[in-house]
């Protein structure tokens, strides 16, 4: 927000263990989280202990806007399921992640928005075409 870091501040869940466990706990609360570096203001994903941009031990949890642009996409067509796209999404917050779009027509440069899907005991951040923000 106004602290100079991308995304918005979010409290880290307590007593969850390492960075991956914290990320999973935030996802379960419906928050797509990444980390911001207090030293260089860089956006960091996947979660880790120190900033890979500057090396500082100054990472804090941030909530993503959940909106981004497709950087690349590949369509897989399983025999027993509908075709789906595996995508690389450049989040507006300044980081990239892999995800899935269940619309095989998705293309590079399309705008997408996060949605959450339960997968066993985990929550997966999937994306869909962003109709309201093209």
């Amino acid at each position: 927000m106004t602290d100079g870091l991308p995304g918005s501040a979010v409290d880290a869940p307590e007593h969850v263990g390492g960075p991956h466990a914290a990320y999973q706990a935030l996802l379960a609360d419906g928050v797509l989280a990444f980390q911001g570096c207090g030293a260089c203001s860089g956006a960091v994903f996947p979660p880790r202990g120190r900033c890979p941009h500057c090396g500082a031990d100054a990472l804090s949890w941030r909530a993503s806007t959940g909106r981004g642009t497709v950087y690349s996409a590949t369509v897989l067509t399983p025999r027993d399921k509908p075709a789906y796209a595996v995508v690389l999404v450049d989040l507006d917050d300044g980081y990239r992640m892999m995800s899935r779009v269940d619309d095989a027509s998705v293309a590079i440069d399309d705008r997408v928005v996060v949605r959450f899907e339960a997968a066993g005991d985990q929550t997966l951040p999937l994306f869909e075409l962003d109709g309201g923000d093209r």
Partner: protein
Amino acid sequence: MNDERALRGRTAIVGVAESDLGEVGPGVTALDLTEQAAGRALDDAGLTVADVDAVFSHSAFYPMPTVVLAERMGIRPRYSDSTATGGSSFLAHVRHATAAIEAGLCEVALIAYGSNQRSAAGGLISSGQNQIPSYEVPFGARLPVSAYALAAARHMHDYGTTRVHLAEVAVAARQWAQRNPAAFERGDLSIDDVLNARMVSSPLTVRDCCLVTDGGGAVVITSAERARDLPKPPIYYLGGAEAHWHMNISQTPDVTLTAASETGPRAFDLAGLAPADVDVVELYDAFTINTLLFLEDLGFCGKGESGDFVSGGGIAPGGHLPVNTNGGGLSYCHPGMYGIFTLIESTRQLRGEAGDRQVEDAHVALAHGNGGMLSSQVTVLLGDASVV
């Protein structure tokens, strides 16, 4: 002694061999194939296990691979290196062995690899089990192919590269394989065959993907002085470079630009050579997009120009640059970590032992290994006595 250029010409490959390749069937282990290749490479070098004082290996089938192989062969090495950068490992081993030999840490290095993935699993086994969380696998990415497909899709978007350009790479590899009796796939293959093959992860079809075979390979390297007393013409180390910028494909800023753009120029600088000096090129072609990216990043053509470069049989027999003259991972052999075969074929071409696929007047070869998801890149330049 702090200038790496001092390593130029200081070591040489003196023995190379493959194990049995293709589908060896049940009852043959990955270690059996590694041992077989290593033994044959020592035979080729005119050396025995008693001469070996350094062992280099990497395996997706058993941990501590140098320790395992040394016990199997009765070697008690004083230098042991299991550098694990996927399929590029064995090219890294060449550079490490050169440094170790030059520093007096060892004299005769055995680099060996084997895999029975086709007979044992029927699928690609390219690295060990991952016990840390993945931020890619849960989304249904079929790795490694989807990672390479994402690079191919972006390259097509940025540079106008087409599926026909990708298919040209597969067809050229097949035409080379048709001249190599050891190649696994030697039937005719057309551009349309590749385009119409089953799509695995768009834009890559099954014919854009490497084979799944069994196989092993080994390389023996020693000092240039000792090499000159051995039966085969020494194939000299001219320069080598290693780099990796990411592990996962989502973690590199530009998926169309690999760390080969760093290793190529550095290796050429060390060797005092330029791409135009290279007579034969052996690239790790796990997927057709690899060949395109590496031709660009190593400097054989400009960025984004590889599609035109390979068109019309540009890298096929009779083309303007001989690339993957054994048929590559696409048509010759791909047991999971192909890198060592780029060294074996380079050596055979420079020795003039390549039979029907021999490149005329081959004095300089470039071998390039890839590991992971376009992650680890290692380039090694080799030459015969005329360039040392």
